[in-house]
């Protein structure tokens, strides 16, 4: 059985595990769910009202039945009702998702556009001073938490230029692309900073490994000029670790960048999950965590498909 089929077969298995983990962890929250949702007001409920509410939220049965119902619903796109928003969970999630996706795409674009050339450049200048500069910058980039970067950006803008980033109501991209980008660029740079540093480091080390391979020496022995060696022979072989890292980081970003959304007051998925946790909106927590995990796994699957595109050994299935 080849690599890709194996990935496709384990996908639903892992997803099932994720759903169980999400479901069980929410049930582990101490106290009963109605009290958790309504707080002190729960004490004012009559037993009948309480029972009706439990039936409404589907928590009047045993765990197994609840899980079965939830899973069946989830498979049809019904993740339940969010108490805080009074809307279906999926609707709440989908409202927030475009912003999160855009932010993730922008940060990845920044990371790849900066990191890949920087890493490749440093690898070809191995141990020279230009390599050293790139490595030091990348090391600092990787070591700076994104909330420090975000706060520093705000600090420099406000103290240095007397301007504050736009933090009013969020404008979707298709309504007004320019205004949207104006709002998104600083958060994207904040997130892209460490991301670019990681891409730089991994592409540098992957390129260094590949440049010492026998087939690179063969290419040189054929008279392939330096640029051809780097772009045609070495880079395609060095991309797999870069794709892996970018995929994982991108997948994480699709789960929402809680901290950066918080700093720049963006209504993304991350803040929604945080609020849901603080508000004890468990249907929303459950639904969004499942949604995010699914996204993450789909991204991983795409990464695996990319491997197959990049490397015939995987495509032709003997790994």
């Amino acid at each position, binding site marked *: *059985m080849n690599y890709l*089929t194996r990935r496709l*077969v384990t996908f639903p298995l892992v997803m099932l595990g994720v759903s169980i983990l999400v479901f069980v962890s929410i049930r582990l929250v101490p106290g009963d769910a109605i009290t958790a949702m309504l707080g002190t007001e729960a004490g004012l409920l009559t037993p009948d009202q309480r029972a009706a509410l439990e039936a409404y939220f589907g928590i009047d049965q045993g765990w197994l039945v609840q899980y079965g119902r939830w899973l069946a619903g989830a498979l049809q796109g019904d993740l339940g009702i969010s108490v805080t928003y009074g809307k279906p969970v999926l609707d709440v999630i989908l409202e927030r998702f475009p912003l999160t996706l855009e932010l993730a795409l922008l940060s990845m674009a920044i990371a790849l556009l900066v990191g890949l050339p920087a890493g490749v450049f440093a690898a070809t200048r191995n141990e020279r001073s230009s390599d050293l500069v790139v490595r030091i910058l990348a090391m600092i980039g990787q070591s700076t938490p994104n909330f420090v970067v975000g706060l520093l950006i705000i600090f420099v803008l406000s103290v240095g230029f007397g301007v504050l980033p736009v933090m009013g109501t969020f404008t979707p991209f298709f309504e007004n692309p320019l205004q949207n980008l104006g709002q998104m660029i600083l958060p994207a740079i904040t997130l892209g900073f460490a991301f670019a540093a990681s891409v730089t480091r991994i592409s540098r080390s992957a390129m260094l490994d590949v*440049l010492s*391979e*026998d*087939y*690179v*020496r*063969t*290419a*040189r*022995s*054929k*008279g*392939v*000029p*330096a640029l051809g060696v780097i772009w*045609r*022979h070495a880079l*395609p*072989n060095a991309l797999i670790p870069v794709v892996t890292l970018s995929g994982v980081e991108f997948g994480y970003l699709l789960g929402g960048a809680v901290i950066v959304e918080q700093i720049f007051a963006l209504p993304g998925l991350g803040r929604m999950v945080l609020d849901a946790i603080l508000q004890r909106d468990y249907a929303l927590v459950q639904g969004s965590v499942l949604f995010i995990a699914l996204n993450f796994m789909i991204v991983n699957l795409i990464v695996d498909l990319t491997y197959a595109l*990049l*490397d*015939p*050994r995987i495509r*032709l299935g*003997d790994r």
Partner: protein
Amino acid sequence: MTPLLSVRDLHVGFGRDPAAHEIVRGVSFDLDAGETLAIVGESGSGKSVTALSINRLIDFGGGRITRGAIDLRRADGGVIDLAAAPERALTKIRGGEIGMIFQEPMTSLNPVLTIGEQIEESFRLHRGLTGRQATAAAKDALDRVRIPDAARRLKYTPHQLSGGMLQRVMIATALSCNPRLLIADEPTTALDVTVQAQIMALLAELKRETGMAMIFITHDIGLVAGIADKVMVMQAGEAVEQGALDAVLDTPQHPYTRHLLGAVPHFEAGRAARSDYRRPEPPVAPPALTVEGLTVRFPVTGGLLRRRTGNVHAVDGVDFDLMPGETLAIVGESGSGKSTTARAILGLVQPTRGAFAANANTRESGNRAPVQMVFQNPYASLNPRLRVDSILAEPVIAAGGRLSAETTARMTMLLERVGLPLDSLQRYPHEFSGGQRQRLCIARALMLNPSVVVLDEAVSALDVSVQAKVLELLVDLQKEFGLAYLFVSHDMAVVERIAHRIAVLYAGQIVEIGDARSVLSAPRHSYTKQLIAAVPSIDRRHETFALDLRQVPSLIRPLGFEPEEAAWQRFGADHLARAEG
């Protein structure tokens, strides 16, 4: 006329201060058009560095030419000093005027590009061909190296081809633009001996066809006898001797050349076989090891449900016995099942069926484990984090013993016997050379007084002159302790020096077994004949091999397949060969 290539006082160094760390120290030679120079030496002699300096690939390996000139006469008659040429000029010369092939065909081709793309690239770079023209040229290049079905193979990626095929592709690429010089850096070292013979035959034929000159780097002086016009022997960065092939081989001047020619095992078709032992008839003692019908099969699965679709018949009904004090060599090429046989006897692989029985060593007392093993790679078979005393103590502890004074005494005795200093006990494996490590492994195998030692390619990873010394040690130990050796090897020259009997394994089955001298001098089975004919030897000067494109049969058989019962033909007292249908 000026020579094609003239190297003068070449010095090559590495590191931050290349002049202080010279690997090549003042090498000079000339090469005329159409001539073949063999550069012979052991690892660290600087032979590969010399080769890589000629087309200046050494620049990319951290090396620097510190002194000397490399004058190449170009196609237009002009002369260029490659040692001083700028990189821009060098890319024109590499591939265009100097082609190169390397030791490891498996890793020397780019895994993500097709064979066709990699050959076409040369035509694009040096001939300006593109599109269909380049493809047609690439197909012709593959035809030229006798790759069947070339048009289809162009679309293959490297991992779909065998090592021998890949080396042909490498040759096709290197020769695509008709370079006037081919540098071949140990091009057959990683290949099986019959495949090696094919590649050597191909190179000889192409040389005749194109009239190119060749520099052939090798550690095996026997290999160049068939192809070289001139020989240069290198040791520690210097050319200690060079001259015409016959002169160097017949009347070597330098002691190191004499050492290479004398101390190193060369294949002599049975004439060098041991004569210190003859199988007693009838047997006087029970065999140290008997193997009957040993069969090892690995399941082949397919489809989504991983259903079993067949078996790999790695070892298929192997029988032999081994007497105390006797060496049986199991020879064969990769995929023949020789290592699997050894591993099955040690219990590292579960045999599908078959029986084996080992008897305790009768000469030594306190035998606790009758069969012990020495592995091929001395760097991988010693735990790098354990001290030598722990390493030697491990078998004793495993057998339920303890670190008594007796154990320590045996350790020091064995260390001394294998020729290692006594303070070795407190050291770690990385402080020893490859040969010393293999001595450690031998000492470890003898800790429990075995009756049989399985030596799986035990000297293959060692330099040729180290090989000879370890072989001597093995013979001495055999006599002293009455050991029986099961010596698994692909190297016929080594086998000739150590074996009393030989079993030839082909596709999981013994095809010929018997007295070493008899098997090597008068092989009876067609495969044994082919194998022995392929072994390079200094006696076979200027001899070439016929091209043969036979493939090894697939070992994958459908479920329920059983091989036919073997029919044996007897040739003399101790020599059997499988009858061929």
